[in-house]
């Protein structure tokens, strides 16, 4: 059995035959996971300084030189790093007095933080599989992003109290701006909203839950939905980028809705996070600093949106990106700014970000070439070993060696 670190579900029932590092046959691995396994031989990152290939030791000492003596360093990424590397990264941030941040600062960080603080009720995927009778996918399309989400946990499997599976025991509700592949499956449970219409939908649902006639949205459908949710025995809400981006930085309406639902019955929230160990980084930083992202270790611990990548790029003087590709995701002006910075990129594959870096340091792919530990998107710890031989260094060793050199 092997593990898949292709997304944050960290599937653990994978069977794979290798011929050297080439994948011969896989079982139970989704298409995205298969792509992840096949990528072992495609476009790997090489150690380089200013575009010229060097050996790994030189790349590591050059990486330390880029960071040395800088006042305002940003350490960014960490979603595709093992827990040990994330911990080492936080130590490095403390040593350098730098800012550390991850993509959750512009995605679902607020939701994850509430979950970790215990202010939003949550549960594990196994609870969902065993007990959930209503699964809500809000601004979330796991069929595309996390292909086995519905089949492993949230809709199709039989569970302890859900022996009849999706046919009779479960209901899927999808709230999205388009008829996504997940919405396709939900059929009647699909609620199409206009872009940015989440706040109106929440308002209408709050009214329906309170027994009032909603002023916005389809009144009859909303009242039916309200009744359905009130009658649910164990509900799960899977949040996606759609919800986080639609409500901007103000998710209070959503938090009140979850609060209201929990007054009536039991509803848990599990954010659907992209990178395989985003939850791990959020948890590790939360344990160390009390916040999930955007933390400065300059004078003790400081936190605020000004330390998120979107704002901090204006004032920082060097960046180290670990296991992430922000250049591909950020808006063009920010991506341009990032590409022009003195930058160290640590990663497994060549990306737009590594192309713009002064120093690149390759690492092994976790779960395939190197072992480690990670947190699944619901917070369950998963430990994996290497399944193929490789000369690549584990991410934790790279971070520790940079830490020794600075």
């Amino acid at each position: 059995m092997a593990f898949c670190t292709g997304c944050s579900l960290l599937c653990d029932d994978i069977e794979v035959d290798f011929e050297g590092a080439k994948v011969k046959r896989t079982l139970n691995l989704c298409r995205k996971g298969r792509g992840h396994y096949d990528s072992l031989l495609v476009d790997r990152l090489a150690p380089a300084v200013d575009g010229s290939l060097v050996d790994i030791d030189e790349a590591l000492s050059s990486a330390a030189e880029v960071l040395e003596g800088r006042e305002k360093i940003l350490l960014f990424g960490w979603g595709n790093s093992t827990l040990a590397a994330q911990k080492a990264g936080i130590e490095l941030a403390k040593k350098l007095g730098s800012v550390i941040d991850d993509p959750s600062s512009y995605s679902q960080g607020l939701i994850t933080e509430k979950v970790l603080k215990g202010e939003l009720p949550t549960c594990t995927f196994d609870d969902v599989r065993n007990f959930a009778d209503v699964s809500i996918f809000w601004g979330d399309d796991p069929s595309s992003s996390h292909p086995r989400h519905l089949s492993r946990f949230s809709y199709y499997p039989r569970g302890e109290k859900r022996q009849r599976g999706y046919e009779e025991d479960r209901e899927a509700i999808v709230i999205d701006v388009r008829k996504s592949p997940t919405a396709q499956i939900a059929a009647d449970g699909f609620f199409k909203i206009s872009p940015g219409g989440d706040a109106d939908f929440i308002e209408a649902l709050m009214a329906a839950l309170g027994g009032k006639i909603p002023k916005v949205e389809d009144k009859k459908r909303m009242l039916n939905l309200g009744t359905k949710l009130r009658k649910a025995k164990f509900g799960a809400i899977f949040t996606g980028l759609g919800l986080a981006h639609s409500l901007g930085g103000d998710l209070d309406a959503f938090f009140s809705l979850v609060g209201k639902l929990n007054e009536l019955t039991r509803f848990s929230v599990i954010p659907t996070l992209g990178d395989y160990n985003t939850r791990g980084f959020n948890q590790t930083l939360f344990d160390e600093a009390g916040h999930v992202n955007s933390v400065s270790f300059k004078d003790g611990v400081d936190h605020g949106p000004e330390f998120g990548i979107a704002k901090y790029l204006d004032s920082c003087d060097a960046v180290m990106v670990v296991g992430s590709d922000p250049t591909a995701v950020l808006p063009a002006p920010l991506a341009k700014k990032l590409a022009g910075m003195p930058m160290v990129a640590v990663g497994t594959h060549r990306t737009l970000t590594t192309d713009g870096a002064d120093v690149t340091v390759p690492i092994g792919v976790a779960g395939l070439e190197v072992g480690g530990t990670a947190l699944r998107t619901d917070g369950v710890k998963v430990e994996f070993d290497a399944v193929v031989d490789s000369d690549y260094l584990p991410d934790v060793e790279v971070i520790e060696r940079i830490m020794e050199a600075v």
Partner: protein
Amino acid sequence: MVSVMEVYQLLPKTNCKKCGLPTCMAFAVELLGKRKAIEDCTPLVEEPKYETKLAGLRELMAPILSADSTETGMVIHTEKCYGCGNCVVACPVNVANDPKGTAIGRGPVSGKAILMVEDGVVKCVNVDQCRRFGDEKVLCNACIVTCPSKAIEFI
């Protein structure tokens, strides 16, 4: 999905009984069920006036007779499949045959499953266990309705 009427429209419609069946409609049913071959309709193959109909019928029947479709008529469009395994977990035969594996959302463990995800896409095995197999078939559609990308169809 090809209907009997579509097949019937492309037959001579003379009820000549040369195929051994009483009507062309009966022949269309048998042809669709793969119990008769196109060549069993001798007038259609031999007489030049039916040339266009024959070409049309061969085109219509091509996916049904191709090696891609299983004996149940299932066609998996692998280029559309995500490998999500929804059909594997939802399939009632998999649930009954593999309660410790596919029934609870994991990969098959019993060797009796009829759908499994291999190399990132779904694959049909043990086809004789499918509810759509054989004469007593039930028109089960669990694998079709659970597919987010419409990668499975029956012909």
